């Protein structure tokens, strides 16, 4: 399988007419507010270094104004960086010529937007095949492919509706189908589910996870919602004021928040769902009767333990061999949020 990882290296973005003039000052540590007040330039991103793994979901999380939407737009260069590199398959996207960039956007990336950004004058099917129509795929083939993906996201029978006849959730399904129809290796999702109400959001997350299990795309997912980040993200990077303040797996972030800001964030998290049994297991001794597969969440383990009225369980790998064990006490200990950081 091709390597579809993306590496962002030393990326800076300063908004304003002469952004490049202030790079050195930013490197020397001028604050965002000072740059804005004294020089009228806005610091968007500062020294971003993220390795986004191939065929995984990389979440970029941050509150509004943290630069996360700016960040994702550098991957398909909807925003020009001030300096820095975005490397994909050995090429720096930031150095591509216009025609190379067009080709890259058409064939390698697809994007889903917070406000859906469907074309209001086109029917659902014509929206879905928009991307491959731009590629020059023939109408017949394009329709066939679009129908396939519309059906995969559960929109059979809506092909000839116009977007404004659909609910928000359904519109975003069209957005997702449009991106998937492109058959690109990279899927960019800019707060794709943020505008949806909670139940529908859960629904869409489930659809995305199911699809990802067979598609194995490199997904860059932007969100301001930590629960969403933890549910979807194989890796998470947290942005604040244009800087990455922590990156790692969800579990790493919940267990070892880098600073008070992040620990504030993670204290409301349901730790039982994030932390895996592997993290807290002790070496295997006399194997208990109950077995729990590796990679299970603490919540799952707690339920198993109480259901079978046991106080300890063996953790088994895929072949069924015991690789460690956990006790009920350890599970509950880890699930409770520490009182202070």
């Amino acid at each position: 399988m091709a390597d579809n990882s993306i590496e962002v290296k030393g990326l800076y973005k300063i908004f304003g007419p002469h952004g490049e003039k202030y790079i050195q000052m930013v490197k020397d540590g001028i604050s965002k507010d000072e740059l804005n007040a004294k020089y009228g330039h806005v610091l968007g991103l500062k020294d971003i270094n993220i390795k986004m793994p191939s065929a995984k979901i990389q979440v970029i999380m941050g509150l509004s104004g943290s630069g996360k939407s700016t960040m994702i737009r550098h991957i398909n260069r909807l925003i020009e960086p001030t300096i820095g590199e975005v490397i994909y398959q050995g090429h720096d996207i930031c150095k591509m010529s216009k025609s190379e960039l067009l080709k890259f956007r058409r064939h390698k990336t697809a994007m889903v937007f917070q406000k859906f950004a469907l074309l209001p004058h086109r029917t659902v099917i014509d929206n879905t095949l928009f991307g491959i129509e731009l590629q020059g795929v023939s109408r017949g083939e394009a329709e066939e492919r679009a129908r396939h993906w519309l059906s995969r996201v559960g929109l059979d029978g809506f092909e000839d509706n116009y977007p404004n006849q659909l609910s928000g959730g359904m519109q975003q399904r069209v957005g997702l189908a449009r991106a998937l129809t492109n058959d690109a290796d990279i899927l960019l999702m800019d707060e794709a589910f943020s505008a949806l109400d909670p139940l529908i959001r859960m629904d869409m997350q489930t659809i995305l996870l199911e699809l990802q299990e067979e598609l194995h795309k490199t997904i860059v997912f932007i969100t301001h919602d930590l629960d969403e980040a933890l549910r979807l993200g194989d890796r998470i990077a947290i942005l604040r004021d244009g800087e990455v303040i922590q990156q790692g797996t969800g579990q790493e972030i919940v267990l070892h928040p880098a600073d008070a800001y992040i620990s504030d964030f993670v204290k409301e998290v349901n730790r039982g769902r994030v932390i895996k049994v592997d993290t807290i297991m002790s070496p295997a001794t006399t194997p208990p009767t109950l077995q729990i597969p590796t990679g299970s969440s603490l919540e799952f383990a707690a339920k198993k333990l109480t259901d079978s009225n046991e106080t300890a369980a063996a953790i088994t790998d895929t072949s069924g061999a015991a690789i460690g064990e956990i006790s009920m006490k350890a599970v509950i200990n880890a699930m409770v949020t520490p009182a202070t950081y």
Partner: protein
Amino acid sequence: MSLKDMLPDYLAEFPKMGRADLRDFKKGIDESFRVFTRENGETIENFFYPLKMFMVWFEKLLLGTPWPLMIAVLCLLVWFGARSITMVIGTALALMLIGYLGMWDDTMRTLALVSVSTFVCIAIGIPVGILMSKSDRIQAVIVPILDIMQTIPAFVYLIPVLMLLGIGKVPGLIAVCIYAIPPVVRLTNLGIRLVDKDVLEAADAFGASPRQKMLKVQLPLALPNLFAGVNQTIMMALAMVVVASLIGAHGLGSNVLKAVNNQYLTLGMMNGLAIVAIAIVFDRVSQKFGKRLQKHSEKVHG
């Protein structure tokens, strides 16, 4: 005693150019334009020759078509544009009344003039509007020109047009176009600029070339505005037919002019109302057609 009397001369009276100087100044410009006309008149006339031929051909076509066929064709066009049976009947009745009152041929001439000038305005106006929408600099140049075209009294630009091309169909057509083209240019530009930024970003993200973006996203979404512009252009072209008749554009307009000169009340009213009838038909049909283009925005999710 007024304030003026207490002031020195140079504050009381505006210091103006000497009378002789002013005369020479005007004469100089007039003379050089006359020279320009003499030298280039033929070239310019040749340039417009195809347009003249087209105009003549189209007018002959309308005048040469038997009236029942003409009414049928017009009703068919109204049907395709508006899909409304009341409007088809209204159009037929209006045309028959016009014919019965003896204004058929002049109405056809006016129809020919308005159709051709609308066509010219669209053919020039839409590309100019597109150009304007693409560059703020071009917009900054064209907007004041449009402002001048819309506010300058029509009689003023009749003079150079007349000097260059004489009396006839083409000068009339040009005068109409100068007056009628601004709305279609403005609204094409506006329509394209108003297209939702999010949708444009999506088009960019999927790798649309500038041309694809224009044809598949911007123009289709600008259509409602663009059509409002075309509608306005048609209305303004109709409003200009009387003025254009001053320099030889025959039709209902020249009858109105005759009525004004001779105080023929009924003649003026009849021809004026015939223009109104055509205007109403054009207006309703183009508006309905514009609305039908937006059928995607009709049914909204509850």
